């Protein structure tokens, strides 16, 4: 591929505003046939907005787009689909109660007189599945399929519509490492077949592995386009953030002390009554960080909810510092020194409509010094909030700002600030850096390690292997509701861990 080769898609001076927010600021991009073009940037850098503009979901305020040399201005996804642009959204656009084939044909249904003609569609689907190694059962209900297979359905949906520019928005976020490898194989096959693949990611390693070219976005602007051979993880991170960042936080060896958390034979059910945590035993000592590795949906969410008092325990026992807290509510747990950074900060972590200061004292607004008898002491709340904001570098207009107006990273820093500022004996951190930029990730990692060094027991649940390997001292692998392996984080091998979380056995570890 030479530099003079004409671009399949060229974007120039594209600007998109959401109210006062400049999501894309004079963005330029060119994408060629047969390449995997990575779009790298932190959350909020404008990657998804740019793709939504390409796909006709968002209308830009200024700029031009040329597709095969022709002006292109979609007024909706149907325009984008017609000219051969396909998009696999980060949150799948599949209808759970429909079958695979129904999802694939939706919007482009072949018909035989009045009736849907699924026979023709089935044949076409089978051909595409075979050509690109994307096997699916056309009559399976989408809601019964694992996420990896649902993603295949999404890709097939785009190919069925004859997409020759395929946009994949954070496609690896939901996949286990072996599935990621498989996806990369599919992407390479598509590019080799002359299609252009736009790969959106914030994961440096993946971008360097699979992309032919990498365009980096920061705060809505293009910082530059580089080839993987010319880049390193460090140089890409610096481009993304705008300053050198520590990708791996320095930490000393753990000095584990007394047992803090002891979980014995824990069984937890999900909403539908199936066992999702199946006999988990776990202990954490003061001064150590135990990481829970696993592909999402293997019971980690429910384990955390049970430990945080948000979900009832079917069987088993949870003790914290000798006190039996099985079935205790969040308030009781907080009194025993348990803090919780929830996986979903919008649902459990913050009241978005309330001022930031109230959120920072959410676990103890009713106690001195924040309240006296029935009255709240607002001056104390404000002083305390101002201190935390400074200490945790939460960027906000004021302590009174409505919490929902903060960026995701700053919201998360506020949750971390609240949970750590109480001096917890046990900290449960679930996906603490999800949707958070590299800078905030660095700060959160430092704080978790500082809490450990201060004598707290830390449970870190994450779907990011790199995060677990960098921050945790000891790792347990969760697969189908059970702990299937336990290993030392310092000596753990990334590839072996990847296989373990995908359900593979590893003879070198204790497997049950």
């Amino acid at each position, binding site marked *: 591929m030479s530099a003079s080769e004409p671009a399949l898609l060229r974007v120039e001076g594209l600007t998109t505003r959401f109210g006062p927010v400049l999501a894309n600021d004079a963005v330029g991009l060119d994408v060629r046939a047969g390449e995997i073009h990575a779009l790298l940037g932190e959350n909020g850098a404008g990657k998804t907005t740019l793709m939504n503009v390409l796909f006709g*979901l968002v209308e830009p305020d200024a700029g031009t787009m040329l597709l095969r040399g022709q002006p292109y201005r979609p007024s909706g*996804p*149907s325009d984008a689909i017609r000219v051969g642009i396909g*998009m696999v959204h980060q949150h799948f656009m599949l209808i759970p*109660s429909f079958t695979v084939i129904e999802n694939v044909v*939706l*919007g482009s249904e072949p018909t035989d007189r009045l009736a849907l003609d699924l026979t023709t569609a089935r044949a076409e689907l089978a051909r595409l599945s075979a050509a690109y190694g994307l096997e699916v059962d056309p009559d399976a209900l989408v809601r019964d399929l694992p996420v990896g297979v649902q993603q295949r359905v999404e890709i097939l949906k785009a190919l069925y519509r004859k997409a020759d520019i395929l946009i994949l928005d954070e496609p690896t976020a939901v996949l286990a490492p072996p599935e990621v490898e498989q996806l990369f194989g599919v992407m390479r096959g598509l590019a080799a077949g002359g299609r252009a693949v736009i790969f959106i990611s914030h994961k440096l390693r993946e971008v360097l592995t699979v992309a032919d070219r990498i365009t980096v976005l920061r705060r809505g602007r293009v910082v530059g386009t580089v080839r993987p051979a010319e880049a390193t993880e460090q140089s890409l991170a610096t481009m993304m953030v705008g300053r050198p960042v520590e990708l791996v936080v320095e930490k000393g060896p753990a000095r584990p002390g007394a047992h803090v958390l002891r979980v014995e034979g824990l069984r937890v059910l999900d909403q539908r009554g199936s066992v999702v945590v199946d006999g988990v035993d776990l202990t954490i000592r003061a001064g150590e960080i135990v990481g829970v590795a696993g592909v999402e949906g293997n019971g980690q969410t429910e384990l955390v909810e049970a430990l945080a008092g948000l979900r009832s325990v079917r069987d088993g026992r949870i003790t914290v510092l000798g006190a039996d807290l099985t079935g205790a509510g969040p308030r009781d747990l907080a009194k025993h020194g348990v803090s919780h950074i929830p996986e979903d900060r919008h649902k459990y972590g913050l009241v978005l409509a309330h001022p930031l200061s109230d959120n920072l004292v959410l676990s103890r607004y009713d106690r001195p010094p924040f309240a006296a008898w029935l009255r709240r002491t607002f001056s104390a709340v404000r002083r305390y909030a101002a201190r935390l904001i400074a200490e945790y570098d939460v960027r906000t207009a004021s302590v009174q700002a409505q919490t929902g107006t903060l960026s995701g990273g700053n919201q998360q820093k506020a949750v971390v600030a609240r949970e750590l500022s109480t001096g917890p004996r046990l900290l449960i951190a679930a996906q603490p850096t999800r949707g958070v930029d590299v800078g905030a990730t660095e700060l959160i990692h430092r704080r978790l390690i500082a809490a450990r060094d201060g004598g707290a027991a830390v449970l870190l649940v994450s779907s990011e292997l790199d995060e677990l390997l960098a921050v945790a001292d000891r790792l347990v692998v969760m697969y189908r509701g059970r702990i299937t392996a336990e290993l030392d984080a310092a000596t753990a091998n990334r590839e072996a861990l990847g296989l373990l979380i995908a359900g593979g056995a590893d003879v070198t570890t204790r497997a049950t």
Partner: protein
Amino acid sequence: MVDIVVALLAISIVKSTPLVLGALSGTVSERSGIVNIAIEGMMLAAAFAGFAVAIQSGSLLIGLLAAMLSGALLALLHAVLTVRFAVDQIISGTAINVLAVGLTGFFNRQLFATGAPPGAMVLPRLHVPVLGDVPVLGPILFQHQPLTILAVVLVVVLHYALFRTRWGLRTRAVGEHPLAADTVGIDVGRLRTANVVLGGVLAGLGGAYFTLESVPHFEPLMTNGRGFIALAAMIFGKWTPLGAWGAALLFGLTEALPVTLQIQGLAVPYQLVGMLPYVLTIVVVAGLVGRAHAPAAVGVPYVKGQRS
């Protein structure tokens, strides 16, 4: 004995007609994601409009068209409010119900202050050739007035359409996951509007039953909660036309029972049997609402381009 059962079932079919049409109205609307609790009001308006226009024009057919049109117009209002302006669907539906009561009451006093004019007629009873002659089934299903037969035909047609055609697939998609439908190029707002208006036409036919088929006059509030019972039938029938039909027949049976008992001369207080449809509605709705699976996106306005 066979005669009594046949008569009971035939009357059930007749009594279920507005419920079937109302439940179909609810099904096409809710399957696309719009709750329509204004079926009651649409039926009432259609009952009046059908009657008044039939009297003025002297044609039952024109009256029937007027009934459908009035249902469609109120439905269009509902669609504009809920789709275009994302008004809460329950609020909009309630407003339309109140509006229909007011409008029909007012025009009824204006036009028919001295009572209904003489000479009003109802649609003639049909005897479907061949099918009407089948023993047992013929009298139950195929010897009725046209709306009753049409309702049964529509059940089959709409069931096929909802599960076997492009329109049906798209309708269900828009009711389950409108954003997903949007990303494959389906115009969510337009499809929802079309379905709500189609629902209005069906509710209009249901309303026409009261004044053009059942009795040749109009009374204020004569729909008497049938629009709401129809919604219960829709839920009981799991948002499918065939299921809704079965449920509506059950409700029809509870209405037919007192009539049949009276004909047979059995001394059961009519107030007691008259309660049955309403008691059954409460049982069905209270017993099933938790378990029945409504379309996932029903009641939620779809606002395009919203940042999630």
